[in-house]
């Protein structure tokens, strides 16, 4: 083992963390190398001396200062809460707050309704009937492999979808986005 390698194990050697085999190997090197032995001895002395370095103590008013800072912290928190409460109380008319809260509820209600109608539209779009319309107009997915649609196609085979996508009765285009309206138009077209 070289001197450099031995040095890598000095801490483990001093802390008694080496395996017996490794320790013996290092002992052999140390017995023959006064340079490494001197480094190890000095390292050990410094390590031991470090334990006895003078210990400083906090100043006498350390805890008083800390207590002051903690109470300042608490006061700041309280004053923030108080300021917030006061600013609400200082509003000219409390009915403004009530109106604001009501407005928020209305907005939430509208958002939820829009989401619900989007969901319904999605469901209508995905009915076999609607998919067929979408396919005919080149807007839908290829659903020929879908069993349900096959059944639908079989059942409705005598009917054909107007390839132009125009309601003959009204002359208006099928509104594919408004599911119910489109379905009504489609029924009118078939009945015709």
């Amino acid at each position, binding site marked *: 083992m070289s001197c450099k390698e031995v040095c890598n194990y000095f801490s*483990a050697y001093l802390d008694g963390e080496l395996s017996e085999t490794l320790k013996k190997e290092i002992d052999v090197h140390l017995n023959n190398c006064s340079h490494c032995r001197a480094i190890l001895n000095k*390292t050990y002395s410094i390590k031991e001396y470090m334990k006895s370095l003078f210990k400083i103590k906090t100043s006498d008013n350390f*805890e008083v200062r800390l207590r002051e800072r903690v109470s300042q912290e608490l006061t700041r928190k309280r004053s923030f809460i108080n300021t917030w409460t006061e600013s609400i109380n200082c509003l000219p008319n409390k009915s403004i707050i009530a109106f604001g809260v009501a407005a928020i509820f209305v907005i939430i209600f509208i958002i939820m309704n829009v989401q619900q109608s989007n969901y319904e539209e999605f469901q209508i779009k995905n009915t076999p009937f609607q998919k067929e319309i979408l396919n005919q107009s080149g807007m839908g997915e290829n659903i020929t492999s879908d069993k349900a649609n096959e059944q639908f196609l079989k059942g409705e085979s005598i009917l054909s979808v107007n390839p132009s996508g125009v309601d003959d009765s009204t002359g208006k285009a099928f509104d594919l986005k408004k599911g119910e309206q489109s379905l009504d138009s489609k029924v009118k077209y078939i009945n015709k």
Partner: protein
Amino acid sequence: MKKKVENTIPTDEELIGRFQDGDIYAFEQIVKRYKDQLLNYAYRFLGAIEDSEDIVQETFLRVFRKRKAYRNIAKFSTWIYTITGNLAKTELRRRRKKKLFSISGLKYNNKEYEIPDRKRGPDERADSVVMDEIIQKAIDSLSPKFKEVIILRDIQELSYEEISKIIKIPLGTVKSRVNRARLKLQELLGDLFKSPEK
């Protein structure tokens, strides 16, 4: 029959638990228990008592503010040492930016001192103070990553496992850093320490 009153000292984890439940007296006990050891840790890191005391004050304020953040999965000492260490490192970085700090190379050649025995007279005690200052300067000259491990291991006498948790590095890395830091100190201070043999 008289009931035996058990006078057990609460653990750190019990104290912080009580503090989390709103017992301010538990916080005061934590302060009393840790203020000096944290001050020594910060002082060995920064080398200035006033700054170190500010760091310790800030540590306790953070413990106060973030008491709910402590989870009983780690030792409380690990948590509080991590806070102090991070604050001390931030302070070091701040100093370096401001260039308030200049460390000259330390080497005490051609001098040979005996290790002073602290239990001796005033002259020896004066020697001891000088020696402490020299050692502190040598510690200051180490890079922060070596400095923190050597302080935690050889001055604070923490286990390698705890050091690994405090500074969040693998155990093997801690051991190798301690070894390199000790060898570096040996290079800087070796001339002050007589080798027992000749």
